[in-house]
Protein backbone atom coordinates (compact mmCIF):
# COMPACT_ATOMS: atom_id res chain seq x y z
CA UNK A 1 0.00 0.00 0.00
CA UNK A 2 1.28 3.42 -0.99
CA UNK A 3 0.43 6.56 0.97
CA UNK A 4 -1.34 8.88 -1.45
CA UNK A 5 -1.94 12.54 -0.58
CA UNK A 6 -5.25 13.76 -1.93
CA UNK A 7 -6.08 17.34 -2.83
CA UNK A 8 -8.66 18.59 -1.83
CA UNK A 9 -7.69 16.85 1.39
CA UNK A 10 -11.36 16.47 2.37
CA UNK A 11 -12.45 14.91 -0.93
CA UNK A 12 -14.89 12.02 -0.56
CA UNK A 13 -14.34 10.87 -4.15
CA UNK A 14 -10.54 10.78 -4.00
CA UNK A 15 -10.46 9.25 -0.53
CA UNK A 16 -12.78 6.47 -1.71
CA UNK A 17 -10.94 5.87 -5.00
CA UNK A 18 -7.54 5.57 -3.30
CA UNK A 19 -8.86 3.12 -0.67
CA UNK A 20 -10.92 1.22 -3.27
CA UNK A 21 -7.86 0.57 -5.42
CA UNK A 22 -5.82 -0.65 -2.47
CA UNK A 23 -3.79 2.30 -1.18
CA UNK A 24 -3.89 4.59 1.86
CA UNK A 25 -5.39 8.06 1.40
CA UNK A 26 -3.78 10.85 3.43
CA UNK A 27 -6.66 13.21 4.12
CA UNK A 28 -7.34 15.99 6.59
CA UNK A 29 -9.64 13.69 8.61
CA UNK A 30 -6.71 11.54 9.74
CA UNK A 31 -4.73 14.60 10.85
CA UNK A 32 -7.75 16.04 12.70
CA UNK A 33 -8.45 12.67 14.34
CA UNK A 34 -4.91 12.57 15.68
CA UNK A 35 -5.45 15.89 17.48
CA UNK A 36 -8.98 15.09 18.65
CA UNK A 37 -7.76 11.88 20.28
CA UNK A 38 -4.72 13.37 22.02
CA UNK A 39 -5.04 14.64 25.59
CA UNK A 40 -3.85 18.19 26.28
CA UNK A 41 -5.39 21.61 26.71
CA UNK A 42 -8.96 22.29 25.68
CA UNK A 43 -8.85 24.15 22.35
CA UNK A 44 -12.09 23.58 20.46
CA UNK A 45 -13.18 22.90 17.81
CA UNK A 46 -10.14 21.25 16.16
CA UNK A 47 -7.77 21.08 19.14
CA UNK A 48 -5.38 23.37 17.27
CA UNK A 49 -3.27 24.83 20.10
CA UNK A 50 -0.79 27.75 19.99
CA UNK A 51 1.89 25.09 19.46
CA UNK A 52 0.63 24.30 15.93
CA UNK A 53 1.63 27.60 14.24
CA UNK A 54 5.10 27.04 15.71
CA UNK A 55 5.26 23.59 14.12
CA UNK A 56 4.05 25.18 10.87
CA UNK A 57 7.25 27.23 10.75
CA UNK A 58 8.85 24.23 9.08
CA UNK A 59 6.85 24.89 5.90
CA UNK A 60 6.01 28.60 6.06
CA UNK A 61 8.07 31.61 7.12
CA UNK A 62 7.41 33.51 10.34
CA UNK A 63 5.81 36.46 8.53
CA UNK A 64 3.21 34.13 7.01
CA UNK A 65 -0.09 34.43 8.94
CA UNK A 66 -0.54 32.06 11.87
CA UNK A 67 -3.66 30.65 10.17
CA UNK A 68 -1.55 29.30 7.31
CA UNK A 69 1.14 27.95 9.63
CA UNK A 70 -1.48 26.30 11.88
CA UNK A 71 -3.06 24.59 8.90
CA UNK A 72 0.35 23.54 7.61
CA UNK A 73 1.00 21.74 10.89
CA UNK A 74 -1.83 19.42 9.81
CA UNK A 75 -0.91 19.05 6.14
CA UNK A 76 2.89 19.46 6.21
CA UNK A 77 3.69 16.11 7.87
CA UNK A 78 1.34 14.35 5.45
CA UNK A 79 3.02 15.99 2.44
CA UNK A 80 6.39 14.80 3.75
CA UNK A 81 5.02 11.32 4.39
CA UNK A 82 3.23 10.84 1.05
CA UNK A 83 4.67 8.67 -1.71
CA UNK A 84 2.24 9.84 -4.43
CA UNK A 85 -0.41 12.52 -4.90
CA UNK A 86 -3.66 13.08 -6.75
CA UNK A 87 -4.52 16.73 -7.29
CA UNK A 88 -7.84 18.09 -8.53
CA UNK A 89 -7.24 21.52 -9.98
CA UNK A 90 -10.77 22.90 -10.26
CA UNK A 91 -11.90 22.07 -6.73
CA UNK A 92 -14.23 24.98 -5.99
CA UNK A 93 -15.18 23.31 -2.72
CA UNK A 94 -11.71 24.08 -1.35
CA UNK A 95 -12.47 27.82 -1.36
CA UNK A 96 -12.23 29.71 1.89
CA UNK A 97 -10.75 32.61 3.74
CA UNK A 98 -7.22 33.82 3.02
CA UNK A 99 -5.86 31.24 5.48
CA UNK A 100 -7.44 28.37 3.57
CA UNK A 101 -6.70 29.86 0.14
CA UNK A 102 -3.01 30.50 0.85
CA UNK A 103 -2.63 27.12 2.56
CA UNK A 104 -4.11 25.47 -0.53
CA UNK A 105 -1.62 27.31 -2.76
CA UNK A 106 1.25 26.26 -0.50
CA UNK A 107 0.07 22.63 -0.44
CA UNK A 108 -0.05 22.52 -4.26
CA UNK A 109 3.36 24.22 -4.48
CA UNK A 110 4.96 21.74 -2.07
CA UNK A 111 3.40 18.79 -3.89
CA UNK A 112 4.67 20.08 -7.25
CA UNK A 113 8.14 20.54 -5.76
CA UNK A 114 8.23 17.00 -4.40
CA UNK A 115 9.63 14.33 -6.71
CA UNK A 116 6.80 11.80 -6.44
CA UNK A 117 4.31 10.38 -8.94
CA UNK A 118 1.44 12.87 -9.32
CA UNK A 119 -1.86 12.79 -11.15
CA UNK A 120 -3.41 16.11 -12.14
CA UNK A 121 -7.12 16.11 -12.90
CA UNK A 122 -10.24 18.21 -13.15
CA UNK A 123 -13.61 17.08 -11.82
CA UNK A 124 -15.66 15.27 -14.49
CA UNK A 125 -18.49 17.28 -16.02
CA UNK A 126 -20.37 14.46 -17.74
CA UNK A 127 -20.55 10.66 -17.83
CA UNK A 128 -17.85 10.25 -20.49
CA UNK A 129 -15.51 12.46 -18.43
CA UNK A 130 -16.41 10.30 -15.45
CA UNK A 131 -15.21 7.16 -17.24
CA UNK A 132 -11.91 8.86 -18.19
CA UNK A 133 -11.53 10.22 -14.63
CA UNK A 134 -11.98 6.83 -12.96
CA UNK A 135 -9.82 5.03 -15.55
CA UNK A 136 -7.00 7.58 -15.09
CA UNK A 137 -7.08 7.16 -11.30
CA UNK A 138 -7.17 3.37 -11.59
CA UNK A 139 -4.22 3.33 -14.01
CA UNK A 140 -2.26 5.72 -11.79
CA UNK A 141 -2.90 3.77 -8.59
CA UNK A 142 -2.19 0.43 -10.25
CA UNK A 143 1.11 1.79 -11.59
CA UNK A 144 2.18 2.69 -8.04
CA UNK A 145 2.37 -0.98 -7.12
CA UNK A 146 3.34 -1.66 -3.53
CA UNK A 147 5.08 0.56 -1.00
CA UNK A 148 8.87 0.61 -0.84
Amino acid sequence: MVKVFIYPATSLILSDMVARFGHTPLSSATAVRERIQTAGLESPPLQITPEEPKKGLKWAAVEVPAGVRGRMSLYGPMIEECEAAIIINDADLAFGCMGCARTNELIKFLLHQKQIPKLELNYPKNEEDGVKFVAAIKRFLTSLGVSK
Partner: protein
Amino acid sequence: MTGYTPAQVGTVTKYVVVESFDVTPADLALRAYEISQGVMIKETCFGIVINGKEEVVNRIISELRKLDPDHIFIKDRGFPPGDPRRCRANLGGARPGYNGMEHEMTIIPYISHGLAELNNRDDNSIPAPENPLDHKALDIYELKKLIDAQES
Protein backbone atom coordinates in the same frame (compact mmCIF):
# COMPACT_ATOMS: atom_id res chain seq x y z
CA MET B 1 -7.42 27.05 30.08
CA THR B 2 -8.87 23.72 31.00
CA GLY B 3 -7.55 20.26 30.40
CA TYR B 4 -8.84 18.17 27.53
CA THR B 5 -9.64 14.49 27.96
CA PRO B 6 -10.39 12.88 24.62
CA ALA B 7 -13.24 10.44 24.16
CA GLN B 8 -13.29 7.36 21.90
CA VAL B 9 -9.49 7.12 21.86
CA GLY B 10 -8.10 4.48 19.50
CA THR B 11 -11.21 4.36 17.34
CA VAL B 12 -11.80 5.42 13.75
CA THR B 13 -14.87 7.05 12.26
CA LYS B 14 -15.91 6.57 8.64
CA TYR B 15 -18.65 7.98 6.48
CA VAL B 16 -20.46 5.54 4.23
CA VAL B 17 -22.19 7.65 1.59
CA VAL B 18 -24.77 6.04 -0.65
CA GLU B 19 -26.00 7.49 -3.95
CA SER B 20 -28.01 4.62 -5.35
CA PHE B 21 -31.40 3.82 -6.83
CA ASP B 22 -31.51 0.46 -5.04
CA VAL B 23 -29.96 1.02 -1.61
CA THR B 24 -31.11 3.61 0.92
CA PRO B 25 -29.31 4.81 4.07
CA ALA B 26 -31.86 2.79 6.08
CA ASP B 27 -30.87 -0.40 4.19
CA LEU B 28 -27.22 0.35 4.93
CA ALA B 29 -27.90 0.99 8.61
CA LEU B 30 -29.92 -2.23 8.91
CA ARG B 31 -27.16 -4.29 7.26
CA ALA B 32 -24.53 -2.59 9.43
CA TYR B 33 -26.48 -3.38 12.62
CA GLU B 34 -26.76 -7.01 11.53
CA ILE B 35 -23.00 -7.43 11.32
CA SER B 36 -21.84 -4.87 13.89
CA GLN B 37 -19.81 -5.85 16.93
CA GLY B 38 -19.67 -3.05 19.46
CA VAL B 39 -19.46 -0.22 16.96
CA MET B 40 -21.49 2.98 16.99
CA ILE B 41 -23.65 3.46 13.91
CA LYS B 42 -25.52 6.65 13.08
CA GLU B 43 -27.92 6.88 10.16
CA THR B 44 -27.88 10.18 8.28
CA CYS B 45 -29.55 11.62 5.20
CA PHE B 46 -26.62 10.66 2.95
CA GLY B 47 -25.71 7.26 4.43
CA ILE B 48 -24.28 6.24 7.77
CA VAL B 49 -21.42 7.14 10.09
CA ILE B 50 -19.60 4.26 11.80
CA ASN B 51 -17.30 4.58 14.79
CA GLY B 52 -15.33 1.75 16.37
CA LYS B 53 -12.07 -0.19 16.36
CA GLU B 54 -10.36 0.07 12.97
CA GLU B 55 -10.38 -3.62 12.10
CA VAL B 56 -14.08 -4.00 12.99
CA VAL B 57 -15.06 -0.85 11.05
CA ASN B 58 -13.05 -2.00 8.02
CA ARG B 59 -14.73 -5.40 8.09
CA ILE B 60 -18.19 -3.79 8.24
CA ILE B 61 -17.55 -1.33 5.43
CA SER B 62 -16.14 -4.03 3.17
CA GLU B 63 -19.40 -5.93 3.71
CA LEU B 64 -21.49 -2.80 3.13
CA ARG B 65 -19.68 -2.05 -0.14
CA LYS B 66 -20.93 -5.37 -1.51
CA LEU B 67 -24.54 -4.08 -1.40
CA ASP B 68 -23.85 -1.74 -4.34
CA PRO B 69 -20.11 -1.41 -5.00
CA ASP B 70 -20.35 1.30 -7.66
CA HIS B 71 -22.67 3.54 -5.67
CA ILE B 72 -21.26 3.38 -2.13
CA PHE B 73 -18.42 5.75 -1.22
CA ILE B 74 -16.40 5.80 1.97
CA LYS B 75 -14.18 8.36 3.62
CA ASP B 76 -12.57 9.01 6.97
CA ARG B 77 -13.90 11.45 9.53
CA GLY B 78 -11.91 13.11 12.30
CA PHE B 79 -14.70 13.50 14.86
CA PRO B 80 -16.85 10.71 16.30
CA PRO B 81 -20.59 10.78 15.48
CA GLY B 82 -22.60 13.35 17.42
CA ASP B 83 -19.54 15.24 18.68
CA PRO B 84 -20.86 18.59 20.01
CA ARG B 85 -18.01 20.45 18.25
CA ARG B 86 -19.26 19.27 14.87
CA CYS B 87 -22.81 17.95 15.21
CA ARG B 88 -25.36 20.31 13.65
CA ALA B 89 -27.80 19.50 16.45
CA ASN B 90 -25.64 21.75 18.65
CA LEU B 91 -24.38 24.23 16.08
CA GLY B 92 -27.40 24.75 13.80
CA GLY B 93 -27.19 24.93 10.03
CA ALA B 94 -25.16 22.57 7.90
CA ARG B 95 -22.34 20.66 9.57
CA PRO B 96 -18.96 22.22 8.81
CA GLY B 97 -17.57 20.20 5.92
CA TYR B 98 -20.97 19.22 4.58
CA ASN B 99 -20.80 21.80 1.80
CA GLY B 100 -17.79 20.04 0.29
CA MET B 101 -19.55 16.71 0.45
CA GLU B 102 -22.69 18.24 -1.04
CA HIS B 103 -20.63 19.56 -3.97
CA GLU B 104 -19.10 16.15 -4.60
CA MET B 105 -22.50 14.47 -4.37
CA THR B 106 -23.39 16.25 -7.64
CA ILE B 107 -20.33 14.62 -9.29
CA ILE B 108 -20.71 11.14 -7.78
CA PRO B 109 -23.21 9.92 -10.45
CA TYR B 110 -20.47 10.42 -13.09
CA ILE B 111 -18.01 8.49 -10.92
CA SER B 112 -20.52 5.67 -10.39
CA HIS B 113 -21.04 5.52 -14.16
CA GLY B 114 -17.25 5.38 -14.65
CA LEU B 115 -16.89 2.55 -12.12
CA ALA B 116 -19.72 0.61 -13.76
CA GLU B 117 -18.15 1.09 -17.21
CA LEU B 118 -14.77 -0.12 -15.98
CA ASN B 119 -16.36 -3.43 -15.00
CA ASN B 120 -16.96 -4.10 -18.70
CA ARG B 121 -14.07 -2.22 -20.34
CA ASP B 122 -10.32 -2.41 -20.06
CA ASP B 123 -9.06 0.81 -18.44
CA ASN B 124 -6.06 0.90 -20.81
CA SER B 125 -8.41 1.31 -23.78
CA ILE B 126 -9.89 4.50 -22.30
CA PRO B 127 -8.16 7.76 -23.29
CA ALA B 128 -6.58 9.92 -20.60
CA PRO B 129 -8.50 13.01 -19.50
CA GLU B 130 -7.17 16.46 -20.37
CA ASN B 131 -4.23 17.53 -18.24
CA PRO B 132 -5.38 20.72 -16.49
CA LEU B 133 -1.77 22.01 -16.42
CA ASP B 134 -1.38 21.84 -20.20
CA HIS B 135 -1.11 25.24 -21.85
CA LYS B 136 -3.90 25.37 -24.37
CA ALA B 137 -2.72 27.22 -27.47
CA LEU B 138 -5.40 28.73 -29.69
CA ASP B 139 -5.82 26.64 -32.81
CA ILE B 140 -4.87 28.61 -35.96
CA TYR B 141 -8.10 27.62 -37.74
CA GLU B 142 -10.11 28.63 -34.70
CA LEU B 143 -8.32 32.01 -34.77
CA LYS B 144 -9.12 32.46 -38.49
CA LYS B 145 -12.76 31.65 -37.76
CA LEU B 146 -12.83 34.30 -35.02
CA ILE B 147 -11.23 36.90 -37.35
CA ASP B 148 -13.68 36.08 -40.13
CA ALA B 149 -16.59 36.35 -37.71
CA GLN B 150 -15.38 39.81 -36.63
CA GLU B 151 -14.86 41.05 -40.19
CA SER B 152 -18.19 39.90 -41.60
